[in-house]
């Protein structure tokens, strides 16, 4: 039953490859809708999987899954108009890859087996590679090449890490299935040294995919070259999937009493990522790269929060959800910018408030949200992370954290003001049709509501997810 959720898009994707012309578009929305329905069903029922030792419904998985399918549904609506407005050759490959991408990501969220998780994550790389190459330009080719190679290398290391965890089992003499859940139960028995080594490899491996500095190098290229709906997916949910792998491993570490080790590593890498993001946000010239680096920043924040634990871990999950919602909306908006102004440089844009008022609302709200300003949810997430970090006593770390947040805000705000209010080099004559703005509004609205009211079931799920790594309050 559980497997159905990723089999449906898999089949649809396979189908889409053979649907020529624009006939694939409705399939996109249709699959999105079905997928959303299935995920909601999964959320409510929490059924058993057919292959329980490979797949399973975990709270963190469910969280990512529900976000994925909500995003995909809205993005698929947006894509209709986007495809109509922008010239994309061989659309069937695009739609097909989108669907396969969805299916693989779903698989990540549902897989409970270490190796299966690895397979799924590697599969996401392969499925998303064609998306990045959609524009068929030299730059996009380079981006794809870097994306595939760097991610494959990184993820290969993650495979080694997974293997090393089995070594830890051998050495520790633990009899267990290779599933995260059972490993977490038996974590005490695992050999600590090999477990640490395994975690290091997995962190670097999946960290490459998640975009943690210094392994983030592929991310800005890929996100800026891919067409906006794809970037929205890449930045919105793919990073979460990679994070899921690290999160689950971190759970094992905590259960094995090595939480201090893994937590510190997470904090350090989180800070590195935030600093790297600050470096490139300050003098950024392309708005999509700007957003990409902002994703790196937020991944850093999330890693930081996870490492801090306690209140911070809760905040990290909140940040995870809200970052997906807001960042994907921002990437969709960047699609509008591209359609409207035709250039990808920040200097090509301007005076959004007059040229494209509706897009302006989405853009500026997204900017405010991503910078952690209420009434959007990242604010509350960052609040908890910072308070949690102080509570855990990481004074220096949180000091750096705050300073780099200041720098990033200064840079990002400068670009946002530039895009929104400065004189525009050209006048836009693009019609802001409903489907080009309402998906963003929907995402932002969700984030806004979740900032003030979280349904109890969602809250319980988050708590279940973080209690094992000492999250909560």
């Amino acid at each position, binding site marked *: 039953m559980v497997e159905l959720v990723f089999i449906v898009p898999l089949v649809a994707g396979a189908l889409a490859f053979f649907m020529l012309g624009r006939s694939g578009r409705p399939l996109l929305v249709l699959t999105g809708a079905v997928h959303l329905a299935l995920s909601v069903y999964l959320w409510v029922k929490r059924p058993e999987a057919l292959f329980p030792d490979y797949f399973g419904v975990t709270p963190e998985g469910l969280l990512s899954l529900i976000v994925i399918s909500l995003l995909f549904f809205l993005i698929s609506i947006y894509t209709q108009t986007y495809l109509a407005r922008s010239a994309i050759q061989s659309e069937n490959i695009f739609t097909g890859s989108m669907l396969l991408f969805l299916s693989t990501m779903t698989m990540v969220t549902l897989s409970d087996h270490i190796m299966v998780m690895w397979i799924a994550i590697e599969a996401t790389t392969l499925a998303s590679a064609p998306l990045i190459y959609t524009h068929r330009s030299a730059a996009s*080719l380079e981006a794809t090449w870097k994306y595939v190679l760097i991610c494959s290398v990184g993820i290969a290391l993650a495979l080694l890490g997974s293997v090393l965890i089995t070594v830890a089992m051998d050495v520790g003499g633990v009899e267990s299935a290779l599933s995260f859940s059972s490993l977490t139960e038996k974590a005490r028995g695992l050999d600590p040294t090999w477990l640490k080594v395994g975690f290091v490899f997995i962190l670097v491996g999946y960290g490459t995919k998640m975009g943690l500095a210094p392994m983030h190098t592929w991310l800005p290229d890929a996100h800026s070259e891919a067409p906006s709906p794809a970037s929205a997916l890449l930045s919105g949910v793919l990073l979460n999937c990679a994070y899921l792998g690290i999160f689950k491993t971190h759970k094992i570490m905590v259960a094995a009493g090595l939480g201090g080790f893994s937590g510190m590593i997470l904090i350090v890498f989180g800070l590195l990522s935030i600093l790297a993001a600050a470096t490139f946000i300050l003098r950024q010239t392309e708005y999509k790269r700007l957003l990409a680096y902002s994703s790196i920043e937020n991944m850093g924040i999330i890693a930081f929060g996870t490492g801090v634990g306690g209140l911070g871990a809760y905040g990290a999950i909140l940040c995870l959800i809200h970052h997906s919602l807001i960042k994907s909306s921002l990437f969709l908006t960047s699609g509008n910018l591209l359609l409207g102004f035709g250039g990808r440089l920040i200097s090509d844009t301007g005076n959004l408030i007059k040229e494209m008022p509706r897009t302006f609302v989405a853009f500026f709200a997204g900017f405010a949200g991503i910078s952690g300003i209420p009434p959007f949810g990242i604010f509350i997430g960052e609040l908890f992370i910072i308070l949690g970090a102080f509570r855990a006593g990481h004074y220096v770390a949180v000091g750096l954290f705050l300073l780099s947040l200041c720098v990033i805000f200064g840079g990002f705000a400068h670009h946002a003001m530039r895009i929104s209010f400065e004189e525009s080099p050209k006048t836009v004559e693009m019609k802001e049709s409903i489907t080009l703005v309402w998906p963003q509004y929907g995402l932002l609205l969700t984030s806004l509501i979740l900032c003030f009211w979280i349904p109890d079931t969602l809250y319980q799920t988050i708590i279940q997810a973080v209690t094992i790594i000492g999250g909560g309050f």
Partner: protein
Amino acid sequence: MNQPADAILSLVLLSILFSFGSSRLPSLIKAVAFQGIVVSLVPLFVGHELTAGGVIFTQVTLLIRGILIPLCIYMAIKKVRIRREVEPIVGYHASMLAGLALIVAAIAFSRKFDLPGIGQYALLLPTAIALLVAGMFLLMARRNAIAMVLGYITMENGIYLVGATFSVRAQHIVEFGILLDVLAGVMIMAVILQNIKQTLDDVDTALLRTLKE
């Protein structure tokens, strides 16, 4: 050196040196293919109980690692008539020396820990480590994109060697999934290589440095 496994593994180590020294892609591909064959055969020697599934799986692995993957790279070269040079960043002799040093280091390093089950295979762990690092080395020290892909495959072989010998628990279906992933990955890389060749008329990665800050 009383184990047959060690005998062929030493050949693998040699192939690493060979791949470091070889200036031409086809020979590099041959080396990688050889490594693929060997690492997929190793589980037979390492004394796991040989179930039917095990044997079949070993053959499938052999097919993919030893033949399919090198083949599709070779095809890629053939199709687009790529220049045969690997364009080293680090020269061949330096690479050779580095390879020797690497092997020595790997052996010395693997002395550190004795692992249950494979204690008697002196060269197993060194070879795995050597393959891993050698792949990394090729990835970093060769400008030619294809050489880099081959480096990636070498890495994968190394990891497989570790995996196949330690994670006895890992179900074959999972192993197979991994294998498929690798295969698909290499295929996609091959496609990209062809596209690179068509757009840039060369696979020298020096041309792929436009995206930067």
